[in-house]
């Protein structure tokens, strides 16, 4: 069995009077690829945000891990240029991947817009910028919330390659699991307020 990255035990969470999660438990080990499934509003995004913050007492991290996150919101300053954003987030996260930025810009065809403010970007370009921002961190766990929304076909393929070659674990919220069944090591599915956890195979550790 691979070492555990994070263990969630009996997570209860509510926003206002609305209970979002009740007794939710799962575990993510090293080098696993989990699919997070469920209908709209089932709690996928909330779970990813909670996990990313990691401050809830239900989460147990055996060792301190780095996580990166691509959510519905970009996590970028829209008034600043892509260059300024990547430099800023690279510095605060002590990134060792800054030299890879030109390569990612090439991959996602953003080189020409590197100096433009984010608010001038299309939705797909914003998403690609957020993906590059998340790649700056040398993370052990990559949290992605429907990252393919708004991406063109070429970028979808590039992101798939990045997912395949990613060295850590992945938790991917998606409505199209069939594309990733060959890669995934398990799925977590929200059904009637419960989280059904099914491991397909042991992690590739």
């Amino acid at each position, binding site marked *: 069995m691979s070492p555990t990255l994070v263990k969630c035990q009996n997570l209860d969470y509510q*926003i206002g009077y609305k209970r979002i999660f009740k007794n939710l438990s799962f575990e993510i080990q090293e080098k696993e690829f989990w699919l997070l499934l469920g209908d709209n509003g089932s709690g996928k995004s*909330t779970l990813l*945000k909670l996990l*990313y*913050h990691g*401050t*809830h007492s239900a989460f147990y991290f055996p060792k301190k891990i780095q*996580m990166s*996150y691509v*959510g519905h*919101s*970009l*996590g*970028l*300053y*829209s*008034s*600043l240029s892509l260059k*300024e954003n990547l*430099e*800023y*987030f690279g*510095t*605060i*996260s002590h990134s060792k991947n800054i030299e890879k930025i030109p390569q990612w810009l090439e991959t996602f065809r953003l080189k020409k817009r590197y100096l433009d*403010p*984010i608010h001038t970007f299309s939705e797909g370009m914003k998403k690609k910028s957020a993906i590059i*921002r998340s790649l700056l961190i040398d993370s052990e766990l990559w949290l992605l919330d429907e990252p393919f929304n708004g991406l063109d076909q070429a970028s979808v393929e590039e992101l798939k390659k990045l997912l395949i070659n990613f060295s850590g674990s992945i938790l991917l919220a998606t409505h199209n699991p069939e594309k990733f069944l060959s890669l995934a090591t398990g799925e977590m599915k929200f059904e009637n307020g419960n989280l059904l956890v099914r491991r397909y195979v042991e992690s590739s550790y």
Partner: protein
Amino acid sequence: MWKALIKKEILLLGRAKNAVLSVLSLGLSMLFLFYFGLEGTENLSLSHILGLKWGILFLISYILVGQSVWEERESEAFRINHAHLPRFSLFLVKSFFIFFVLVLVLGFLQILLVVFFEKYKLEKNFFLHGSIYLSLGLLSLSFLGVNLSYLSQSTRLKEMLLPVLLTPLTIPIFLFGLDAEKNAFFTNSFQEKSFLILCLFNILYGSLGALIMELELDE
């Protein structure tokens, strides 16, 4: 890290041309309004002018804080910041940056007040002592503004709630700050008691803000 945070704040303000224009037009409009409405017919007393100055600075601090926190919230950049940086560092850098901008605005405002109002004279002692009280008051305003802006982010009203939260808590700062400045003018002496009280406000609002930032306020 600190350098990156300060650079980010400078860049964000530099790009917020609307906020800078709002600050300028609001400050100038209030001055013109009081100058043509009151000073033209009867000279305003020093207490009125000092009150006007603190009032303008309060409104400007609200615009600056509101603009700055909107930038953090708009694309949820704060979420990424919180994952990598101690939250109190974000609070301190934003507060001190807003304080620094307010001091610049104050410098500009002092010149305009001397030009427009006859009874407002910047004598050496009044200027020196007044600057100390004003600086302490502005720092308290910045701490309080940034602190409450993060609280207001976790409500549905967002920045719209900020003035409602800000107004009652700034009244003590106004009372002691204005009083100290007025006394400094009339007695030409340093108001030690007011100075200490304003220092205490800074310690209180600064530590309270840093503490609140450490709490989970996401949803």
